[in-house]
């Protein structure tokens, strides 16, 4: 009697389990199909977004940028920026850990290794609080600093973690670029 009860219970648990696994599998399959369809468009959009950021940093439509083949470990990417034949500087992409995940930052640096601007490409910070790191009066503080300058960057009150993350990101970017320019790159 007890055994029979146990058996029906087991069957029920098994059925429920199979149902959930099957449901998850079907949804995962459909999502991966959708991913194949949308992948190209998404990367195209992201590429355009990056280009817009670089154009805004260097203030010129005619700039070109190439990804450097060797990237220091601490940063995501370094792009060498040129306009026609002349070298304009570098863009360093870093993604420090913010309050709500990684903050994707592009740091524009001129030929003398000082910052010409900082752009936030994407972030998941709290809207209205951490998201204020996108404000110009915060980001403009970074202009003209170099890896050697000891200028203090004011954090935004209420957004301490996010603003510190950006500051840290810019510092990392500058020292990684220094490292690269001095030729002492750690190749991974």
């Amino acid at each position, binding site marked *: 009697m007890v055994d029979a009860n146990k058996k029906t219970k087991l069957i*029920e648990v098994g*059925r*429920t389990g199979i*149902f*959930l696994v099957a*449901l*998850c599998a079907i*949804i995962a399959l*459909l*999502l991966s199909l*959708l*991913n194949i369809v*949308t992948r190209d*468009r*998404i990367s195209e*959009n992201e590429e*355009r*977004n990056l280009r817009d950021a670089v154009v805004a940093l260097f203030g010129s439509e005619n700039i070109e940028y190439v990804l450097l083949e060797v990237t220091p470990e601490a940063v995501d990417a370094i792009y060498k920026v040129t306009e026609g034949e002349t070298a304009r500087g570098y863009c360093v992409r870093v993604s420090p850990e913010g309050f*709500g995940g990684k903050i994707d930052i592009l740091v524009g640096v001129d030929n003398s290794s000082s910052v010409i601007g900082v752009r936030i490409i*994407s*972030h*998941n910070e*709290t*809207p*209205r609080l951490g*998201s204020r790191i996108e404000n110009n009066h915060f980001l403009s503080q970074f202009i003209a600093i170099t890896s050697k300058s000891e200028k203090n960057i004011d954090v935004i009150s209420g957004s301490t973690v996010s603003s510190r993350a950006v500051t840290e990101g810019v510092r990392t970017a500058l020292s990684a670029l220094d490292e690269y320019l001095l030729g002492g790159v750690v190749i991974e």
Partner: protein
Amino acid sequence: MSKNNGFITQLKNGIFDNNPTLIQLLGLCPALAITTSLSNAIGMGVATTAVLICSNILISLLRKFIPSKVRIYTFVIIISGLVTAAEMLMKSFFFDLYTSLGLFVPLIAVNCIILEGADSFASKNKVITSAIDGLSMGLGFTVALIAVSIIRELLGTGTILGFSVFGASYRPAILFTLPAGAFLTLGLIAAVVQKARYAKEDREKSKGREEERV
């Protein structure tokens, strides 16, 4: 004819009589957070409505197969799958909107309007009525978002859809772009809606009394 009437009643129910945001006070997190501009509100409303309709249809289709013990898990799996799909589609077709809504797109998955619709309506009703319920609840949510965002954008930044309304001399009341302004605006709108509802009820009651007397 009766079917048509049912459709209109259901729509009216979602938008006015039983508005998910202004009457039931569900889904307040996005309603308070993203209503700083009208374009955000429209984008969020449309995205939520689309997810709501699809989840209601799917759950209604599956309602005979979903084991009741794990029904909430099932709803959450289906809803989060749909939201992931919506996120991918938004990233590929409305990239600017996606960047401005940011974190709130994945958070559609935990909007309680959707889970509530799934549990109390779609799992008990036929596919078409469930779809209409999704549409009407989604529209109700969108209407509420639009109402809040118009007031907040107009007073907080002096613009509508990015176009300046009051001219350059207007000094915006920054309070309205902050969270406190969101609560104030939503609270006032909800109060006005309640007042209108009670006024209507009173009218109907006094009408009934007069008829009795006659």
